[in-house]
C-alpha cells in the first residue's frame, strides 16, 4: 500500500521539504509508493526577508510574492484550505469545512503567526496610521507610505518579546532607517530609538556587543529590558510594564509571535504558545513518532529563520525516509543559522552560529570567505543574492554549494582564553 506524507504549511519549510522529499524518493526503494500532499490556507508565497526592504521602497510586491503551487514539483498535490486541527490518535488532519486527510507521516511547517491582540492598544487608535509592523505585507506596504510622508520626529522601533522571526530584522530596520533619512537629507530631524526586552542589541554576547556599538555609531538610541505593556497610539507613547514611557511620532512594533491557532485545537500537539515541542536534533515531535516539525512552528532553541529552516530540511527529510523504512533516526541537527544583517549604505554583516557556538568574528565558510560580524559590501551583495537563491535553490530543497547543514568551524575566531558560558536561548 502506498504511504501518505502530509505537509502542513506551504511556506519556506513546507515547500522545501516537499520538493526535497520528492527528489530523494526517486532513488528510494519505496519511492513510487509515496504520495506527498501540501496544505496551505492561501496561494501567496511571500519571500519574508523582502518585507524588510518594502518600507524603504527597495522591494516590490511582484518580486516578493509568488503563487505557492508554482514552487512545488508537479507531482506534489497542493490543497488550498485552512487547517482546523490534527487528530493525533487517528493520524488524520481535519481541514476547515470538514475534509479529512489521513497520513502515515505528518510534517508541521505552519510557521509563526503575529499575536497582535496580546498587546494592549496595539491595534487601537493610530494602528496603521502611526503604529505599524513590517512583519506582514500589508503592514510593510502601509509603512512605505508613512515613511515617505515622515518629515521628522521620533521614530521608535520596538520588539514586544522574544521569540520573533529573524531576530536581527528589527535592528536592520533601524540601520536602514538611518540610511533612508540620511539619503532624504532629514536625518538631523529624526531621532531613532530601539526599545528591546533584551539586555543588549542581541541575544548572544559577542554579537550583542558588536551590534550595540553599531547602533551607537549610527546614532540609534538603545533602550534595554523594556517590556511593552501598552501601545498608546492616541498619546503617541509606549508604556512599559515597569511604568517607563517611550514617546513616538511613528512606532514600528514587532508583535508577539505564537504558533498557528489550529495547533492549540489539536490535543497533545502544542505548548502554551502553540509552538510544537520538537526534538532539537532529530526534528521528530514529542507528540508522536510519525509527526515531524521544522521552521518557525517548532520550539527548538534556534533562530526562527529561513536559513535554519533550510538546514533543518536536510535532516528532517532524511529522518522521514528513515522512519518510513523503520530505521533509527539521525540526531544530527546542530541548530545552524546563517544570517546577513543589512546595515545600510550598501553594506551588511554576516553571522553564522548554532546551538553551541555563538556568532563569532572571522570568515565564512573558511578563513578566506565572507567577513563575519563585520560590515562589508560583499555581505550586502550576499543578502541581495539570497532572494535569487531562495526562489531557485532553497525552495527546491537543493543543497546550497558550500553551505551545509553542519555549521563550519574553520574560519571562526574564538575568544581567548575562555568562551562565555552560553545558555540555550531562542534567539
Amino acid at each position, binding site marked *: 500500500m502506498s504511504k501518505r506524507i502530509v505537509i502542513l504549511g506551504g511556506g519556506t519549510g513546507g515547500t522545501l521539504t516537499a520538493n526535497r522529499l520528492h527528489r530523494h524518493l526517486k532513488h528510494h526503494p519505496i519511492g513510487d509508493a509515496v504520495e506527498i500532499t501540501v496544505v496551505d490556507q492561501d496561494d501567496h508565497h511571500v519571500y519574508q526577508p523582502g518585507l524588510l526592504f518594502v518600507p524603504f521602497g527597495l522591494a516590490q510586491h511582484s518580486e516578493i510574492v509568488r503563487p505557492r503551487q508554482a514552487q512545488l514539483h508537479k507531482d506534489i498535490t497542493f490543497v488550498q484550505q485552512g487547517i482546523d486541527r490534527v487528530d493525533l490518535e487517528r493520524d488524520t488532519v481535519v481541514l476547515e469545512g470538514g475534509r479529512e486527510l489521513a497520513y502515515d507521516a505528518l510534517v508541521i511547517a505552519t510557521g509563526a503567526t503575529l499575536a497582535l491582540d496580546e498587546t494592549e492598544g496595539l491595534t487601537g487608535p493610530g494602528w496603521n496610521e502611526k503604529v505599524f509592523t513590517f512583519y506582514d505585507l500589508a503592514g510593510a506596504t502601509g509603512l512605505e507610505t508613512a515613511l515617505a510622508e515622515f518629515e521628522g520626529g521620533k521614530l521608535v522601533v520596538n520588539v514586544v*518579546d522574544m521569540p520573533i522571526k529573524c531576530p536581527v530584522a528589527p535592528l536592520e530596520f533601524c540601520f536602514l532607517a538611518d540610511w533612508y533619512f540620511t539619503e532624504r537629507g532629514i536625518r538631523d530631524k529624526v531621532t531613532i530609538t530601539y526599545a528591546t526586552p533584551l539586555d543588549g542589541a542581541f541575544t548572544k554576547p559577542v554579537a550583542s556587543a558588536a551590534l550595540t556599538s553599531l547602533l551607537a555609531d549610527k546614532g540609534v538610541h538603545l533602550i534595554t529590558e523594556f517590556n511593552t505593556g501598552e501601545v498608546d497610539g492616541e498619546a503617541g507613547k509606549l508604556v512599559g510594564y515597569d511604568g517607563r514611557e517611550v514617546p513616538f511620532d511613528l512606532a514600528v512594533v514587532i508583535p508577539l509571535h505564537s504558533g498557528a491557532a489550529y495547533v492549540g485545537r489539536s490535543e497533545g500537539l502544542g505548548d502554551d504558545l502553540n509552538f510544537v515541542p520538537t526534538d532539537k536534533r532529530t526534528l521528530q515531535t514529542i507528540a508522536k513518532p510519525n509527526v515531524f516539525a521544522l521552521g518557525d512552528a517548532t520550539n527548538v532553541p534556534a533562530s526562527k529563520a529561513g536559513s535554519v529552516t533550510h538546514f533543518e530540511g536536510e535532516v528532517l527529510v532524511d529522518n522521514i525516509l528513515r522512519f518510513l523504512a523503520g530505521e533509527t533516526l539521525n540526531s544530527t541537527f546542530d541548530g545552524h543559522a546563517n544570517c546577513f544583517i543589512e546595515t545600510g549604505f550598501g553594506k551588511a554583516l554576516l553571522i553564522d552560529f548554532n546551538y553551541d557556538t555563538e556568532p563569532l568574528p572571522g570568515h565564512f565558510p573558511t578563513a578566506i570567505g565572507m567577513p563575519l560580524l563585520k560590515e562589508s559590501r560583499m555581505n550586502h551583495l550576499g543578502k541581495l543574492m539570497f532572494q535569487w537563491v531562495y526562489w531557485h535553490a532553497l525552495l527546491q530543497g537543493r543543497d546550497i554549494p558550500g553551505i551545509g547543514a553542519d555549521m563550519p568551524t574553520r574560519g571562526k575566531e574564538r575568544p581567548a582564553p575562555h568562551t562565555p558560558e552560553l545558555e540555550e536561548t531562542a534567539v
Partner: protein
Amino acid sequence: MSTATMAGVEVRLNDEGFFEDPNQWTEAMAVEMATADGIDTLTDQHWTVLKFMRKEFFEKGTGPTVRLLGKTSGVSVKDLYLLFPKGPAKMAARIAGIPKPKGCI
C-alpha cells in the same frame, strides 16, 4: 560562582545571584532574598507565583517567561510587575531558587 549563607545554610550561587542547585532552596531563604530585594512581606500571591515557577522548572527544565507566567500562573502580567517590580521572570526566578529563565536573557 560564589557561596552565600541564607537562613543559616551555605548555598552556591552563580555570578548573577541565581541558585546553582535549586534543591538547596528553602522557603526561609526566599523570605530573606525577598526582603533584601525590597519586598517586605511575601503575600499569598507572591507564593503562588514562586511555587508555580518551581513547578514549571522541575517539569520543563526552564522557568517560564513573563508572557507564559501571565498566561498560565493565574496572575496577570500587570499584577506580576506589581508583585516583582524589578521584572517578574528574573526577580521571581531568583527568589524561587531556580536558574534565570532561558527566554529572558
